């Protein structure tokens, strides 16, 4: 196990064990000492036997997670959520990430590369100090662009302002809700978006994370977290 700070308040946690290949866009529920509920964290990178999570320190649980050290045993529920589905028809993908929401897009970029899909990655951050996995995305995507609110790196402004530069026939997005809404409004093609909600169980039994969609009530943890654009009714 490794647990290291890769950007300001952003940690990369590598877990090893009896872990199958986990789907891009699926998540794990991490049990944190002293906290009653588990913390949902997306799969950032996965190979059999190993999973990498990237998390931002925002409260008690994620602060506690930074204290994990080598050989600590972490109890996780794996293979939660549906994950991204890559449509066969799409040849040019756009990945849109906002802040820590870029984490699950990495495993997706790996899978798109395997399928030979031309991939453009655009990401928005508050400032340069929060950017993580820049090299990794540059290595695996055909094009990468950044926007920061303060202009400390890449384009100054919103990630949606980068859209005109991109060539794509399908999109995938993960980030804060206002960003997802702006992206949905600005992009004409079909796509998939990964959502967040406070969770009780994380595996579909408590109805804590419900979302009303065009196809009725869905659970973000079990029927999502990834939804197709046309399902969302915001």
């Amino acid at each position: 196990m490794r647990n290291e700070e890769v950007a300001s308040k952003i940690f990369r946690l590598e877990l090893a064990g009896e872990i199958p290949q986990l789907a891009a866009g699926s998540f794990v529920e991490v049990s944190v000492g002293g906290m009653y509920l588990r913390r949902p964290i997306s799969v950032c990178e996965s190979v059999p036997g190993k999973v990498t999570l990237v998390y931002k320190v925002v409260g008690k649980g994620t602060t506690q997670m930074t204290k994990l050290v080598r050989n600590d045993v972490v109890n996780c529920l794996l293979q939660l959520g549906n994950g991204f589905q890559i449509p066969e028809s799409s040849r040019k993908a756009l990945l849109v990430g906002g802040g820590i929401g870029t984490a699950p897009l990495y495993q997706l970029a790996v899978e798109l590369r395997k399928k030979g899909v031309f991939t453009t990655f655009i990401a928005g951050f508050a400032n340069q100090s929060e950017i993580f996995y820049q090299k990794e995305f540059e290595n695996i995507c055909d094009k990468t662009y950044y926007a920061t609110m303060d202009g400390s790196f890449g384009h100054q402004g919103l990630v949606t302002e980068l859209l005109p530069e991109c060539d794509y026939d399908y999109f995938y997005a993960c980030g804060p809700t206002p960003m997802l809404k702006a992206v949905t409004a600005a992009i004409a093609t079909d796509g998939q978006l990964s959502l967040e909600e406070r969770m009780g169980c994380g595996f579909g039994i408590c109805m804590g994370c419900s979302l009303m969609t065009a196809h009725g009530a869905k659970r973000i943890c079990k029927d999502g977290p990834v939804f197709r654009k046309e399902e969302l009714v915001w």
Partner: protein
Amino acid sequence: MVDLSVNLCGVTLQNPVIPASGTFGFGAEMAEIYDLNVLGSISVKGTTFEPRFGNPTPRIAECPDGLLNSVGLQNPGAKVVAEEEIPNLRKHFHQPIIGNVCGFSLDDYRACCETVATEVEIVELNISCPNVHNGGMAFGTTPDGAASVVKAVREVCPRPLIVKLSPNVGDIVSIAKACEEAGADGLTLINTMLGMRIDIRRRKPVLARKMGGFSGPAIFPVALRMVYQVSKACRIPVVGCGGVASAEDVIEMMMAGATAVQVGSENLRNPFVCKQIVENLPSVMNELKINKLSEIIGIIE
């Protein structure tokens, strides 16, 4: 061999361990995780006559040793529960099933019970949900209100009727007695306690509905106390519920007076907990020199 079986209102359960309503869905997701047939019974998600989406999110707030929920009885409605969800659960589960019936008026409770009751072995009447306006708990907080709904449902209920009570009351014993006199066959104690959390950074309540039901290990002593008081005052069996997380907790609840025990919140953080409790009970019984679990029910004077 130790004997785990108990008799709940004339229904024999192979053991007293029952997942609590709202913390096990309708069993379908759990059946993918383990073989449910190790359980004594299952209390399925609270059901209303009409389908309900429930309250806005966030519906979950973490607390020390527990959580708040304000789900608000999200369910597909009595018809779908009776015709699809329970038959689907029967494919995986060959033990008695408890239907959890909720409503907003006497007629609503009766209609829901009539639709669901014939599909289950036991009906659990929820007059204690704190998460819906003018429903459930409005009936459960006075002896007269509780008696009126029990009487109304009793007439149309062909199954043993267990009434699930709210702890958000001054005198639990008087409400329990009113239910017994109105014809209840048993009581479940307790539903969640009304609670609240605030996000001090955003200066807003964590839950969209502001308040929600508090559950988890933190409420175990309160549940145990109410099980004790009520089982001493009533003749009908009591199902203990609230904060149960281990085989030891089950035994403690039974010593306090519970005939069977429900496990709620713990399922959310440890999906295997009910199975583990059933597996651990025999060794804990051996250690405590208990041969027959039903013998310890209410042994505390």
